[in-house]
């Protein structure tokens, strides 16, 4: 399969008045054609910042300190604003977590869709743009699009608004769709609708999806490959089954054990002790050291290097260094 996107050793820091947050401290992953990659991590893990850095949407004070972003063979890390504008929406587009605040409240839904077409498909006439927008609204399952075209976002429910966001993102059939916690703010039944819709559209529009989430259920139902992040660093990555069933990193294992299994009736739920690290003064060793039950002295001093278990399965943990005798977790 053709490699669409390559992120190499990315470091991002955000300068705020309460200090410099080392939001991302070395992350690398690739994305292939018509594939769904899940980036998993809890709040403060840097999963969202990494993807905003790819799109050049870092908040004020945010900066890519190190690392490269290769999109379709071109290094876009230090593209100018003008060059990035050619890519945003055309080759890579993004949908966000909170549908209630992600749409412009004073602009009709129709205009917000046609605007995307205006930006990247100047050859289309206004008439064509409107028809394409109606087609998109129908494609994402919004009933009677003609009437809803002229309405405002506040007249749509949460689920409906997320569908509008998807129609905007897919308007120019981008190669990559980055979905930042698309269903976190939605109810379970609505979330199921949106996930089904995204799977159906992926085949129809042949786009690869990066889905950012902390919900491992969503990962197992959507993703082909998984990248796990913690404390701003890459922790583990691999195919879905490898990460879920041959888990290598203690954090991933801890996460999986923290979720109740519906089949068992009297399961003892494991809980990872302690709280996530403060990224203004990040721990210099492995970020998970303070909460890891198998922590060794080396983990507190040096950042672990990466170890390979298969062509696709890698983890960053000292346990798998030959000097660590004990070796494998499971």
């Amino acid at each position, binding site marked *: 399969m053709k490699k669409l996107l390559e992120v190499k050793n990315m470091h991002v820091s955000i300068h705020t008045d309460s200090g410099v947050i080392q939001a991302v401290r070395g992350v690398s992953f690739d994305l292939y054609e018509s594939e769904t990659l899940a980036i998993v991590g809890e709040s403060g893990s840097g999963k969202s910042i990494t993807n905003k850095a790819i799109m050049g949407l870092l908040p004020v004070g945010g900066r890519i300190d190190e690392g490269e972003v290769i999109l379709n063979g071109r290094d876009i890390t230090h593209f100018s604003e003008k060059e990035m504008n050619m890519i945003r929406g055309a080759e890579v587009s993004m949908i966000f977590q909170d549908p209630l605040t992600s749409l412009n409240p004073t602009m009709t839904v129709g205009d917000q869709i046609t605007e995307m077409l205006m930006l990247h498909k100047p050859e289309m006439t206004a008439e064509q743009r409107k028809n394409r927008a109606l087609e998109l609204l129908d494609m994402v399952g919004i009933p009677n699009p003609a009437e809803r075209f002229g309405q405002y976002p506040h007249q749509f429910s949460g689920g409906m608004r997320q569908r509008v966001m998807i129609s905007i993102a897919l308007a120019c059939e981008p190669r990559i769709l980055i979905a930042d916690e698309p269903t976190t703010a939605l109810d379970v039944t609505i979330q199921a609708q949106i996930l089904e819709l995204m799977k159906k559209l992926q085949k129809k529009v042949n786009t690869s999806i990066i889905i950012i989430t902390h919900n491992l259920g969503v990962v197992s139902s959507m993703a082909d490959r998984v990248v796990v992040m913690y404390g701003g660093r890459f922790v583990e990555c691999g195919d879905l089954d490898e990460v879920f069933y041959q888990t290598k990193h203690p954090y991933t294992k801890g996460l999986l054990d923290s979720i109740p299994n519906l089949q068992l009736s009297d399961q003892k739920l494991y809980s990872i002790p302690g709280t996530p690290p403060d990224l203004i003064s990040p721990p210099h060793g492995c970020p998970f050291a303070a909460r890891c039950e198998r922590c060794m002295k080396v983990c507190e001093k040096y950042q672990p290097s990466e170890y390979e278990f298969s062509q696709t399965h890698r983890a960053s943990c000292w346990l798998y260094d030959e000097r660590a*005798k004990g070796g494998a977790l499971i």
Partner: protein
Amino acid sequence: MNAQMNIPQELFTPAGDNTAKQEHIARQHHSAFYDGWIRLRKNKAAVVCAVIILIIAVMSIVVPMTSKYTYFDTDYANKIAKPSAEHPFGTDLFGRDQWVRIWYGTGISLLIGLAAALINLLIGVFYGAISAIMGGKVDAIMQRIIEVLVGIPSLIIVILFMMALPPGIWTIIAAMSVTGWVNMARLVRAKILNLKSQEFVLAAQLLGTSTWKIILRHLIPNTISVIVIQVMFAIPSAIFTEAFLSFIGVGLSEPKASLGVLINNGYKALRAAPFLLIYPAIAIILIMICFSIVGDGLRDAFDPRMKH
């Protein structure tokens, strides 16, 4: 990769119990007000202005007491004397020393501004708090009253008050308090209504805390930032109103002096001696600027969400 290679073997042994560190909070301990104080201190302009206000306030008390002239001694011999060593701010039409008069006038203006703002604070906080805490019918009625009062052009009413009552400092303050407290009442009511639905107030109710204790321990402490910020904006507007009243001739009467009176006298003698207008003008502008900047600084430090 070689840096990783030469890590000594013994490091690969369990690091012992690190549970103690798990709940540890990295940043050193300080209170919510302390946080706000740091942010305020970083705002250099606000600190400088606060110092200026203090200096002005002190001078406005000290100078009239220590100077050999008083604000009413007339000396027709050297009318409209240019600013000199003897009279740093010169003398006015009646030969009165402007240095003393301006500091005395500033003092009066500050006094009026502070008093009016504090009275508006008291009425406004009580009215707003009672309206929000009682809720239901009482709140509805009190809100109707506010909606009616808001419709009244306050400055016109103040002028009429000034005409009807004998002029004097306390008349001005009383006049300004007729509808001056409405703003404070609306802000305090909105804040308390918001707090009342907050979960920590519900929790206090469930713990059996009496209404009075909820007001004192939960509602008031969280409303103080709103009150302080509003006062910081109320003082300059009161000073402005007083100056305005005196300028159109309904404020303080001679020989009493406030910044408004001085500006009015200065305006009358503008052609002959512009400095009689310029010095009091600079005084009032400086005070207004300082209060605005300190007010902004306080709002950004203690209550960032509240927009002006």
